[in-house]
């Protein structure tokens, strides 16, 4: 293994990290605004990937184009999910939303198993399998697609939160819900839209995950655990933190694969998350939305 291939590995880890950051954004928005860790997060991403799979199969279109249909559907799913489940159990204490999202995760997994069987699926298209050369490095086009999408989504959410009324309202409610109520912000309506937004981002992440990796109905938990690690590293609800956490997670995955082999890659990542949780339960960087 020469130095160039190692640099190449690190570079691809960085690109992959972008994809992980993108995957974690939805969880981060959810945690930052609703103060709920959505355990079904990964399963929603896989649901989006299966939706895209069906649409691509039916309309024979490009995976990126399928987002035009998948993203609005996921927005509506997120809105309804918040309205009819999470909003109802939020007053029942902190543990109820955990159980509700956990039960939902099981429902989504088994629904997908019933509809799509346990076969491996992928959204890969031929042009994403070509070899690119950039300054002597070989970035994976799939990882690069995830990385670029992550930056675009990050910028879009950032502008949305800073510039629009709804975005500001979404930041106001977790900051001080009483004051927000006083100036006429209905927190449950804001929550519905925030969940819709989170699921829209999850849809983008799901399609890119589907392009990058094969997926099964029960792949969801892998992504919720990795996203949780990313969110914890970056501090709950901090999007910038999630971006940095994503990069760390990407490197952890490629380096884990490099040093311990692909069998122990995922286990190594999980251990890294557990160790970070142990030393710093509040996250490495801390911070707000």
């Amino acid at each position: 293994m020469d130095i160039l291939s190692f640099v190449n590995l690190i570079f691809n880890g960085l690109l992959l990290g972008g994809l992980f950051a993108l995957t974690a954004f939805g969880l981060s928005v959810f945690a930052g605004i609703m103060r709920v860790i959505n355990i079904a997060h990964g399963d929603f991403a896989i649901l989006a990937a299966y939706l895209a799979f069906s649409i691509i199969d039916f309309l024979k279109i490009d995976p990126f184009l399928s987002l035009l249909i998948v993203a609005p559907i996921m927005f509506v799913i997120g809105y309804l999910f918040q309205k009819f489940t999470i909003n109802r159990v939020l007053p029942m204490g902190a543990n109820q939303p955990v159980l509700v999202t956990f039960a939902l995760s099981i429902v989504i997994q088994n629904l997908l198993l019933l509809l799509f069987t346990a076969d491996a699926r992928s959204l890969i298209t031929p042009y994403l399998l070509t070899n690119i050369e950039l300054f002597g490095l070989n970035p994976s086009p799939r990882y690069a697609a995830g990385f670029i999408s992550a930056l675009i989504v990050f910028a879009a959410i950032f502008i949305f939160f800073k510039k629009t009324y709804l975005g500001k309202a979404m930041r106001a409610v977790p900051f001080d819900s009483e004051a927000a109520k006083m100036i006429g912000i209905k927190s449950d309506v804001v929550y519905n839209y925030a969940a819709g937004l989170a699921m829209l981002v999850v849809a983008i992440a799901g399609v890119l995950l589907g392009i990058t990796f094969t997926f099964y109905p029960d792949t969801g938990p892998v992504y919720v655990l990795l996203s949780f690690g990313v969110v914890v590293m970056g501090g709950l609800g901090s999007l910038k933190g999630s971006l940095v956490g994503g990069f760390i997670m990407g490197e952890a995955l490629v380096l884990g694969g490099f040093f311990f082999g692909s069998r122990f890659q995922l286990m190594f990542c999980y251990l890294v998350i557990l160790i970070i949780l142990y030393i710093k339960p509040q996250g490495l960087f801390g911070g707000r939305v």
Partner: protein
Amino acid sequence: MEEEFRMANLKNYYTYIVIALAFLASLPLWVGGFLRDALILFFLYLAAAEVWGFMAKHAGIVSLGQQIFMGVGGYATAVLCMYYGFPLWASVIIAGLFGAGLAGVLSFPLLRLRGVYFSIGTFLAAEIIRLFFNSWEFVGAGKGLIFKDAYAISTTLIYYPALAIGILSIFLVYFLYHSKLGFGLRSIGADEDAASGLGVNTFRCKASCFTLASLITSLVGAVNVVHHTYLNPTSAFSISWTVNFLFVAVIGGAGTIIGPFIGSTIFVALGYLLSQYLGLSLLLEGLVVLAILIAIPEGVWGVISRKLKVKLKPPF
């Protein structure tokens, strides 16, 4: 005063308890093999759900990693019996204690975490252990173990340990609820910071509770493997164990002793009705749990006891 009241209250029921126990002990002598199987499952799920529900409802410890102890209890039993020649039932008991020890060790990293962090921490730990067993050649890696020594054990013989664990779990929940430790746990469940401020050693309380609950779960895992005689990492450490315990606990009413009786009955019946369709039963379980959590969070037993104005001593 309260102590006396409790003793008097219990003495009135002693006759009933003895009759009930005699009835339960005689069951395998006159029910068929099919029902005996169902009863074993009933008591195993009852035991695991009793302690899971107690932890979740009263101490606020929502573990999504009880499959760790189902798996470790099962593997420890098989390994002790097959590799080291321990007698079968001694292996079961040592496996239970081993699982409790593991829970004690895991408390140190995991119980530093609160609320949902703990829940995800346990889930992470379970996945790490599953992936580890998946490539651990000593226990057959992904292929798993066939527990030949348990082939000869009849279901009648498995019924009694299952019954014993079920009864043990009920006593544990009752005494946990009314002991000093239980008061500490209930205060933690209500408000952890306030409890800590009032001098409750929150870590020790939670770790004791987690360890005792995991002792029961490990014993359940151990007896379960004697019953099923086969183990592999994917099924032994499957999250569906915790889903099942959640279902059994929540449907009847988590944190009550009677609730899981209802839950376990429904679970076992559902299991037989849907035995042909594995995915379908989990889907249905998830939907029912979701509906119960949203519509009747106190569970079926909670609603019944409220409607009929039944006043039982908590945690019944």
